[in-house]
């Protein structure tokens, strides 16, 4: 929408504006063309000529009111601040349990669980080189492992976010543990925050386990299962993070993420599910880069577009379905290995952008994120950063504090139109599933990634300590990198192998046969069988391998 034609009735505006323009031109000489990461040209000054508030009610309105540009709840952070949700995952289940108890003792009501890279690849701990185990997440392959990891954790009273890609074995193990402990599934809350298989196919290949068609089927079964049996669980988190980390611009990220959400919503409608029941449990997960105003505009525009899409295009009637609930994680891609303590400053700025955009939950990266898995000390600083922003900087006092800024509103409008153009392109390609399958999205992201890298190399995007100010001497990380103790990890593997052998092999075969049958029958819910398999002592690797065989192995499409 061009705002050039906005008529102003401010007496004296034109003359004053003209005087400033002349003065600015004289002093600056030849002005540089500045563009943000989404390649939108940024002017030196924004005025009521760019945005004058006349579309206030249609485009902004009030917090908790359609189209939610200013926030999805009436009270936002003034009523309830965001959830501090730090990712944790390391070593053996016992190591994880020790760390999670520290967090719970400190008063946390939400935890997260990041599995080992071997788990992401869909294999068990005895299938990989033991030096790679537990370096980036916790090794959890069975219901017993999960029981040990969650020992003493009050499952019914905390919210758990799990990095648990399709076929969602970690949730299955958790439900099996709950049953053992007599905790009703209806009291289990949390999020499958890596359920977005399309984003994995496109941009986070290590989470991609099943074929596209297989992953689509399992996700829909998972959504239906949760709706029936675990109603407090969010089975879908649509992830923009991977695409932005892979190089998508903020505009591309928001467009592709919303297109993905449309795809999942449409798939649910086609299955005959009630769209309002489904959408109420949709959540989003984004990267927050250091491009401060652009991120704020990205989130505000995303909230507005989603509300309109949900209401008008998907036909949702419940306001709960229109609300764009999102978790933000400060972007690790912006952090540098050089002069690592500078990352504390970067994370603070990224977090400010997320908070001032009205996010619902936040993970702040530790400053050593660019180098290794955080230690307790660096993780503590990351949490303190959130506390400082909330308590000392008073970022929660005012709702949507940047709303009404000529710049932010103009940029929000501009990003919104560009996002909508891209959503139109994905629609024209037949929707996100097809646009990913054909490689269209991957090649757009690849082009943007290379273009950004070239701007860094030309010095147009400056990164302190990388392409400028390289010689500032500062403290570096000279501590020893912590790795899981290899002997304890090999013990864990040995115990796991003994466990597998001690099981009734007939029971194992029966459970896997039932799973394979369900995978081949459209009438059965395959996720029900996955949960039963978890209860029967079947391992993560066995479940994934069975489904890979029946539903197809997930080979990401790599576009160079």
């Amino acid at each position, binding site marked *: 929408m061009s705002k050039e034609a906005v008529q102003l009735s401010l007496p004296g505006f034109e003359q004053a504006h003209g005087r400033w323009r002349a003065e600015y031109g004289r002093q600056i000489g030849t002005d540089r063309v500045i563009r943000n990461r989404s390649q939108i040209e940024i002017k030196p000054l924004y005025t009521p000529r760019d945005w004058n508030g006349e579309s206030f009610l249609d485009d902004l309105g009030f917090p908790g009111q359609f189209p939610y540009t200013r926030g999805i709840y009436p009270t936002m952070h003034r009523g309830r601040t965001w959830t501090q949700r730090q990712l944790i995952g390391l070593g053996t289940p016992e190591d994880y349990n020790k760390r999670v108890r520290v967090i719970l003792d400190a008063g946390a009501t939400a935890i997260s669980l990041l599995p080992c*890279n*071997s788990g*992401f*690849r869909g294999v068990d701990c005895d299938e*990989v*080189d033991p*030096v*790679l185990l537990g*370096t*980036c997440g916790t090794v959890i392959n069975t219901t017993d492992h999960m029981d040990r990891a969650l020992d003493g954790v009050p499952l019914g009273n905390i919210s758990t976010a799990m990095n648990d890609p399709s076929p969602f074995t970690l949730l299955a193990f958790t439900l099996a543990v709950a049953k053992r402990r007599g905790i009703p599934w209806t009291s289990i809350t949390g999020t499958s925050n890596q359920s977005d298989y399309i984003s994995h196919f496109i941009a*986070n*290949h*290590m*989470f*991609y386990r099943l074929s596209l068609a297989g992953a689509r089927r399992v996700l829909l079964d998972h959504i239906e299962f949760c709706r029936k049996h675990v109603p407090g669980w969010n089975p879908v988190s649509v992830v923009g993070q991977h695409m932005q*980390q*892979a*190089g998508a611009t903020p505009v591309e990220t928001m467009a592709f993420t919303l297109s993905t959400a449309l795809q999942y919503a449409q798939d649910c409608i086609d299955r005959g599910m009630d769209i309002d029941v489904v959408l109420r449990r949709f959540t989003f997960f984004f990267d927050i880069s250091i491009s401060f105003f652009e991120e704020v505009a990205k989130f505000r525009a995303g909230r507005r577009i989603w509300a309109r899409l949900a209401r008008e295009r998907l036909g949702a009637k419940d306001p709960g379905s229109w609300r764009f609930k999102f978790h933000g994680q400060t972007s690790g891609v912006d952090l*540098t*290995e*050089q002069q690592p303590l500078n990352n504390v400053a970067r994370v603070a700025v990224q977090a400010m952008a997320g908070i001032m955009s009205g996010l619902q939950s936040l993970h702040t990266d530790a400053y050593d994120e*660019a*180098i*290794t898995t955080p230690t307790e000390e660096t993780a503590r600083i990351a949490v303190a950063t959130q506390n400082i922003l909330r308590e000392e900087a008073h970022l929660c006092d005012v709702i949507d504090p940047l709303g009404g800024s000529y710049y932010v509103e103009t940029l929000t409008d501009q990003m919104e139109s560009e996002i909508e153009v891209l959503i139109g392109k994905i629609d024209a390609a037949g929707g996100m599933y097809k646009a990913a399958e054909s490689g269209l999205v991957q090649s757009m992201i*690849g082009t943007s*990634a*290379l273009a950004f*890298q070239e701007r860094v*190399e030309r010095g147009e995007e400056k*990164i302190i*300590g*990388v*392409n400028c100010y390289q010689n500032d001497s500062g403290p*570096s*990380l*000279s*501590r*020893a*990198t912590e*790795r899981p103790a290899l002997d304890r990890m090999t013990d864990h593997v040995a115990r796991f192998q003994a466990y597998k052998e001690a099981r009734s092999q007939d029971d194992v075969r029966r459970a896997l046969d039932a799973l394979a049958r369900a995978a081949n029958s459209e009438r059965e819910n395959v996720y029900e069988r996955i949960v039963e398999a978890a209860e029967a002592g079947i391992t993560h690797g066995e479940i994934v391998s069975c489904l890979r065989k029946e539903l197809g192995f997930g*080979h*990401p499409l*790599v576009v*160079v």
Partner: protein
Amino acid sequence: MSLATLSPPARVLVTKIGLDGHDRGSRIVAAFLRDAGMEVIYTPPWQSIPAVVKLAMEEDVDVIGISSLATDHLIVPKLTDALRAAGLGHVGVVVGGIVPEDERAVLIDAGVHAIFGPGSARDEIIQHVALLAAKVRETKDAELAEIAQ
């Protein structure tokens, strides 16, 4: 750019071993080595060590570039051992990505020629790989000449 030009051009295998799948770096490096005139063999992530050795042999590569962002560098010494065991000890190995300071020496001792951390300049990587490839080619040619005699 003073690129040592080989004829036929340097053959470089860009790959990832182990469990991690973050491949933005390996794709970008593969693209700019190709643009610098090298013949790049690119694989998706999660290659096994025997698969990399086999590919290096079949494709007769001069240099192998391993990208590691999430601790897969810990098994690079196993790759260099496997290359030597397969008679490919002359192939140059470089690593790019995240390798903590205190874990670099192990890789260098294992025969890794260079480790390119985040922010490494494109030209620096191209030049290093080009020179390394030229050196590897000399060794290979000398070995071939010896066999011919």
